[in-house]
């Protein structure tokens, strides 16, 4: 679906990958007067796994909402060079969002919940059925299509939420602390699932988290943010020679990555506030 005709596309850093999102000097203040984001610039290229990391109140969720097109900017601009832009000036159909809560409709079955994005596009149930079952298979919930959300565990609900995000085959997957409320084992399992998806489908992921370990495990690029007002503190790649799989967790490289990320986060928090961290 890449539109190669678009004239105003600026040459991206990597020649064969066009940027999906370009945020330029974005500031965002709320009606209460709080400056949530100050002069933030961020370009996300296709195929990246970017983690937005920072203390609470650093505007990472706000940044993610702006990337999704849900929130408008106060000053600066946001553009989606690879997407078809609809009448409202928002990207159409290329972006999916996974919230911190599973955000499922309790009155719909698992199947019905995953069907939602396609239903809103006017795709009939019969036509959508194969894609829905494929998305459910990806997250390992094929046998639960007829179940209602209340019958599922927290981790399973989150998987449904991910299946719903994947069913439209988006280019960009935005995840806002999706596993923060889950137990450690489920969280690690879902981290591996997301990585597998990222590798297999070539999807681009922007992942908001406040966990150093999660971001170091998952992403090949880390954007560390600073609070009051929210802004970018550091932006660096995190390459590894190993495969990001459970064994990576115990490797020396992972330890070094965590240390690097942790040091940058401590810098961002500043010496005064660092005492609050353990």
């Amino acid at each position, binding site marked *: 679906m890449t539109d190669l005709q678009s004239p105003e596309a600026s040459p991206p850093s990597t020649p064969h990958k066009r940027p999906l999102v370009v945020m330029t000097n974005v500031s965002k203040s709320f009606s209460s007067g709080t400056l949530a984001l100050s002069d933030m610039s961020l370009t996300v290229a296709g195929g990246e796994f970017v983690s937005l990391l920072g203390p609470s109140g650093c505007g990472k969720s706000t940044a993610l909402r702006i990337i*999704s*097109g*849900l929130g408008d900017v106060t000053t600066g601009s946001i553009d989606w060079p690879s997407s078809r832009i*609809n009448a409202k000036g*928002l990207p*159409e*159909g290329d*972006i*999916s*969002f996974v*919230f911190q*809560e599973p*955000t499922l*409709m*309790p*009155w*719909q079955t698992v199947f019905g919940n995953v069907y*939602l*994005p396609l*239903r*809103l*596009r006017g795709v009939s149930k019969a036509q959508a059925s194969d894609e829905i079952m494929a998305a459910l298979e990806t997250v390992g919930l094929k046998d639960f299509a007829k179940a*209602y*959300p*209340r019958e599922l565990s927290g981790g399973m609900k989150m998987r449904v939420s991910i299946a719903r995000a994947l069913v*439209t085959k988006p280019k960009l997957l935005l995840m806002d602390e999706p596993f923060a409320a889950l137990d450690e084992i489920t969280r690690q399992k879902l981290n591996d699932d997301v990585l597998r998806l990222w590798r297999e489908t070539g999807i681009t992921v922007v992942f908001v988290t406040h966990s150093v370990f999660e971001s170091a495990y998952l992403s090949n690029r880390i954007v560390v943010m600073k609070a009051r007002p929210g802004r970018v503190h550091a932006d660096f790649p995190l390459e590894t020679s190993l495969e990001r799989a459970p064994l990576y967790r115990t490797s020396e490289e992972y330890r070094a990555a965590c240390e690097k990320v942790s040091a940058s986060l401590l810098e961002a928090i500043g010496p005064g506030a660092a005492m609050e961290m353990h």
Partner: protein
Amino acid sequence: MNAASPSLTRQHRETVLRVLIPVGVVLALILIWHLTVTLSGVPQYILPSPGAVAGAMVKDWGTLAPALWVTTQITLAALALALIGGVGIGVFLIQSKWIETAFYPIAVILQVTPIVAIAPLILIYAPTTQVALLVCAFLVAFFPILSNMVQGLKSVDHNLLNLFDLYGASRWQTLIYLKLPASLPYFMTGLRIGGGLSLIAAVVAEFAAGSAGAGSGLAFRLLEAQYRLNIPRLFAALILLSILGVVIFGITSFIAWLSLHRWHESSLKREN
């Protein structure tokens, strides 16, 4: 060995007891009533025995049955109108904050004014007494449905609303696929309250209107029996009203259970 069967019979026994116990209590109360009347020698025109009431029910069935039918019709018609009006106006009110600010107070004024106080006016303006009764019952039943609907439509999960925005859902799609289903539990509460209130309002309005003749309902028959000191018939009319109320409650509760039991917390059986 077979764990399912003893628990099944236990469940079965519980279901049977659930029916038997309330029925037993009602029968016991009727027996006490009967014994009190026969042993104390209270005259029939003050407190008739259950037997006399049953006799009146059979003897006066020709008068009571059409009245029951009239009251049932008014109640159900008022409830149906209240449902349509409550849901329709609820959807209209949530379209914008200003619409709600402008019109919600009017609904409140209609609600808080005692129905007996408006009934004379409605009687003057309505073409027939039946229409007047219908309007009164509607006004009373309408508000709980409206206020529950507005509450329900506004209580939608914000993240789900964001999700619908993200997928470019139209206003109509958001209403049909999100807001209406999400407000179903609230609607059901409104339905149950409205069902009970429409019967009460139909009776109160008929007291106020005092209609007579072929088209009169149970409330008029009740008053008429009182004037004639036909107390057994009064009791018979009263019992028919109670039965009608119970049936409406049963039906609305069943509808609520039917539509919610698969997903909503209120209809789930807690197991722990």
